[in-house]
């Protein structure tokens, strides 16, 4: 899949590029609005990651231009401006999602994943993890025909880990995913341990879960 990263901050667009390339995306970068506008016009992108605070262009104009030109790229707005109405305006103009800086790359990836899923209207949208089958659409999980009762946060946690399988996710990344923008400066990411403990307990009742791995001092990993 082709991604255009529109971001005037070169270091940032570089980090995003490294990450997304590692995830198997083809990345292209634009450091200003003019070049972004040209690239969107010439090429076909699946995703445009759009920074609103560009030096030469209002980010919204790029979005408008692209939508007017009937480009079916998915837009994710990335902004540090923190205007309350930016989010609403962006989504109104046809953006698919909105991420406030600073954001986690894992979070960006899961949002892109969700958009892809939505766009292609995948009817059967399941993830098989060993003996368990996660139905992402209906938010259920089964093991050998028996349903496992998970809370919303437990499901989200497992889904997020499964999405980034074989990769360690830190408590910070996990808690930011399930808690979102909680404005607590001494935010306690150790709540994650409690959730994982409960998750393990619920799943172990059906089948062994040695595939949920605790990486000491770092976080958790789901291997399959």
């Amino acid at each position, binding site marked *: 899949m082709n991604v255009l990263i529109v971001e005037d901050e070169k270091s940032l667009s570089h*980090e995003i590029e490294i990450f997304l390339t590692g995830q198997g995306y083809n990345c292209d970068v634009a450091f200003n609005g003019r070049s972004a506008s040209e690239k969107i016009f010439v090429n076909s992108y699946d995703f445009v990651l759009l920074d609103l605070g560009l030096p030469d262009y209002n980010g919204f104009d790029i979005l408008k231009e692209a939508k007017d030109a009937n480009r079916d790229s998915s837009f994710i707005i990335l902004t540090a401006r923190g205007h309350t109405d930016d989010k609403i305006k962006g989504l109104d103009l046809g953006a698919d999602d909105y991420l406030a800086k*600073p*954001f986690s790359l894992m979070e960006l990836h899961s949002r892109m994943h969700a958009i892809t899923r939505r766009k292609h209207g995948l009817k059967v949208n399941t993830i098989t993890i060993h003996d368990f089958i996660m139905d992402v659409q209906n938010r259920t999980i089964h093991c050998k025909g028996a349903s496992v009762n998970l809370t919303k946060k437990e499901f989200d946690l497992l889904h997020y880990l499964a999405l980034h399988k074989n990769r360690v996710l830190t408590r910070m990344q996990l808690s930011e995913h399930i808690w979102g923008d909680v*404005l607590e400066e001494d935010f306690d990411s150790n709540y994650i341990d409690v959730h994982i403990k409960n998750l393990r307990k619920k799943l172990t009742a059906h089948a062994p879960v040695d595939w949920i791995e605790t990486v000491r*001092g770092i976080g958790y990993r789901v291997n399959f």
Partner: protein
Amino acid sequence: MKLQLKLAIYNAISKALIILAIGLILPLLVESVVLNHIDKRLEARRDLILKKIKLGGLDQAILEEDCSFDDYNIFKEEFIHIDGLNVSFNNVPKSSIAIEDWSIGDQVVTERVIKQPFIYDNQWYMLNIGEGMSTIGQLKTTISKFTLLVMVIVVLVSIFIDIAFVRLTLKPFNLIVSNKLKNIKDPTSFTPQVISTSTFEFKHLDESINEMMKKMKDLFTVEKEFISNVSHELLTPISILQNRLENIVADSKTPEEVSIKIIESQKTLSRLSRIIRALLLISKIENEQYLKDEAVAVRSTINEAIHELEDRLDEKKIAVVFDIRDDFTVQRANHSLLHILFFNLLNNAIKYNKQGGKITLTGQLNSEGYMLEIADTGCGIQAKHLTDIFDRFKRFNAEDKNSYGLGLPIVKTIANFHHIAVSVRSVPDEGTTFTLKFTA
């Protein structure tokens, strides 16, 4: 006191004083004019009589004047009286004119009397001509009464006219105050419309306010831009760092012990970004950058927050006593801000509660509006800290381990924004109760 009333009273008093002065001076003036008139007449009469005496002799004159030596006409209140004087030349009294009490018959009357000595047949005589004064007294009372009446009427009429006039004159002033000062909450919603007035001072005031508001509006815009720029300037570098650290941790070549250190740095970074976002939130609320265009029900908003905190409640085995008897709808509110308010208060009630504790929520309508209480069974707050917990710049001693962070300053700011009064009471080791008072 209203300026309108002040001016009316001032005008009434000043007019009353002027009329009073006129009322006092006028009778005196009238008296002197009348006396002058009487004197002229008396002098003319004296001259006429003396001439007649000179020409026709004393007896003839008396005859012609139709008066005796001692004549008094009761209707005209006048008399002519001629006395023979038994004095030598040197002792002849001088001529004079004065008010005298004069006895005529058994009557004593106050008269203006002119006295003129004259010589006739080598004999000195004194001619006395008198004219009554009672008319003057009457005139004086009439004038006094009349002026008093006029005074009262003029004062009353002038008060009414003054009030009406002042009200009319002050109308632009009231318009300026209500349109430009009272009803303006946010300088950005100000429109510099000129209020028409012919009064120079009000025009001046109006222009000055327009100018001031324009300056404030500009400052406000600058401030908003500043906040927006600050968030961009601060959050972008954090974003770069965070993503770079994420990439390093994700890299399989990174040794584990390095990863652990980086994760610690990520935590610090995350804390930094949360602090910045909290401060930005506060300043954005204070700069009225949030809309209040929703009607928000308290009960359902609290329920949402409780639902979101369910796992934290479970983890600490905290029971929630939900005693919100009456619901209340905050008109003109911002739902996401009120959600943050309840979330923060409940989150604190969990965080500082003991294992297996309790949170009691009570909400009821009363005569003043609506009162919501969130009470926990936690460690409580020391009395000396109670006044400071809402202050974003006050931090407690690190050894107290009682840093409440920015959660409560945010609560306070959101409450102020919605005109909700927040108060707190606490008993150490028993619990803390936050009270929110919503005015209907």
